[in-house]
């Protein structure tokens, strides 16, 4: 029997052990499980386990008419339902090749940007709570409530909106919507300043997030991540600018980028994006025309056989819908390219070699929603 002498590295290592982060853990942002292999406090391997929230929405869509799929898209990314609605209806409109009224286009932009702000506020709040700043959570939810009230006023629901329709939107905004929206837009920058004082300048937050979970541009592109997570690496890639859909080419806004691609940049970029979204909504209010909000679309939608792919800038990245039609009233196949799934793919890469406390911060910083990952 030959005894092999242990190398110095092996001597210093403690016994490796695995722990389960989730699926019943508040900081996994849903039912997601990560199997962490630890060496002391250092994470040396991460295994993603997904599928706990699988509801088969893509399969269900094959047995629903084109209009009936809209409520299901709410339940994909349940924090930004409006954006899911928008992506889906624009896909079907691309397949049918129909024009939608000007007023509906502007309403879609207002609603989508409001939803983006609400979604980023959930991110900032949950990011704060994951580094043990419960106060940060409260302030964001106070302001998000105002936006949810606006959504409830327009479409009757706060989370599952189902507002967009093929050929326009479900109904026009109520008469007192614009004055309330203008008031909310005036109040939001005050709230943002509070977050800045409360969180952005906080030494504990900076200490926990600066230089933690760094993704460089090449890794980000290899994994196919998009949205704020990609822009935090320094690449100004925003589909609203690069490949404008709807009427986004008419608005003047900037694409904020980060520098280092660490957790702090991913946090800060969302604050900046809220400011840009406010700018877009202000321009939309100024230019919104009168008129109808829905074009004439037959009740039974029967597109010609064919396939279409359309992507929009979701709150978490590139949200794409791939639709195959066989000429009947129901789609042959609907596939959803969800941004959270792409972001989750890079999580093991960015966490290896870091401490277990930082794994939680990293997971919070990529802003995943499990409804969208498992579909």
């Amino acid at each position, binding site marked *: 029997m030959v005894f092999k002498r242990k190398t110095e590295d092996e001597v210093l290592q403690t016994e490796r052990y695995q722990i389960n982060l989730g699926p019943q853990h508040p900081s996994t942002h849903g039912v997601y499980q990560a199997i962490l292999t630890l060496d002391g406090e250092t994470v040396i391997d991460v295994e993603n386990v997904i599928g706990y929230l699988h509801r088969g929405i893509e399969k269900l869509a094959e047995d*629903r008419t084109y*209009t*009936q*799929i*809209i*409520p*299901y898209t*709410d339940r994909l990314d349940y924090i930004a339902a409006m954006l899911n609605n928008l992506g889906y209806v624009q896909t079907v409109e691309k397949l049918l090749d129909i024009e939608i009224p000007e007023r509906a286009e502007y309403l879609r932009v207002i609603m989508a940007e409001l939803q983006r702000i609400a979604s980023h506020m959930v991110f900032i709040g949950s990011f704060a709570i994951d580094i043990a700043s419960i*106060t940060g959570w409260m*302030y964001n939810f*106070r302001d998000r*409530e105002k936006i949810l*009230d606006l959504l*409830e*006023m*327009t*479409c*009757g*629901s706060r989370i*599952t909106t*189902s507002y967009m329709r093929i050929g326009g939107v*479900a*109904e026009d905004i*109520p008469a007192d919507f614009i004055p309330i929206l203008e008031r909310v837009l005036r109040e939001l920058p005050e709230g943002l300043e*509070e977050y800045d*004082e*409360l*969180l952005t*300048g*906080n*030494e*504990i937050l*900076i200490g926990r997030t600066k230089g933690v979970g760094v993704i460089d541009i090449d890794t980000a592109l290899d994994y196919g991540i998009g949205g704020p997570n990609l822009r935090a690496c320094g690449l100004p890639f925003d589909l609203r600018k690069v490949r404008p859909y709807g009427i986004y080419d008419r608005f003047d806004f900037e694409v904020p980028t980060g520098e280092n691609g660490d957790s702090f940049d991913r946090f800060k970029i969302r604050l900046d994006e809220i400011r840009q979204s406010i700018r877009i909504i202000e321009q939309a209010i100024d230019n919104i025309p009168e008129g109808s909000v829905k074009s004439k679309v037959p009740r039974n939608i029967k597109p010609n056989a064919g396939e279409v792919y359309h992507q929009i800038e979701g709150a978490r990245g590139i949200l794409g819908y791939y639709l195959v039609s066989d000429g009947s009233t129901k789609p042959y196949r609907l596939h959803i390219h969800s941004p959270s799934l792409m972001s989750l793919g890079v999580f093991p890469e960015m966490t290896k070699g870091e401490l277990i406390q930082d794994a939680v911060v990293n997971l919070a910083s990529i802003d995943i929603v499990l409804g969208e990952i498992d579909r």
Partner: protein
Amino acid sequence: MYGYGLLKGLRVTLGNFFGRAVTEQYPERRPFISPRFHGFFQLDLKKCNGCGVCSLSCPNGAIQVTSERDENKKRFVTGYKISLGYCLFCGLCVEACPRDALRFTQEFELSSYRREDFVCDLLEIEKREKICSREPA
């Protein structure tokens, strides 16, 4: 100066400590519900003729409508069951109704202890409410 950021944060919380409370005292004080809110359903028996378009438009098949024809071949509704357990509250049924007979109410406290209670017969509810409103208070 290290710690200045913490002090600035504390100033924000202190400022809000003396401000107005944001929290809603829910069961004691009723929240404001917007008129378009998707709550419980209300069926107008005078308008509904039991055509069943709402049932066809429902993504989950949560609505069951039965109807019959009278001696003039005119259709009238004989049963209207809606299963709230399957309802997505998307509003496609209300939107599809050609006679505006179905509408949402602002009632949002729809939870129940038993599964059977989620199947609501809107026809029964309407009839019961009619009798109740006739009785003197």
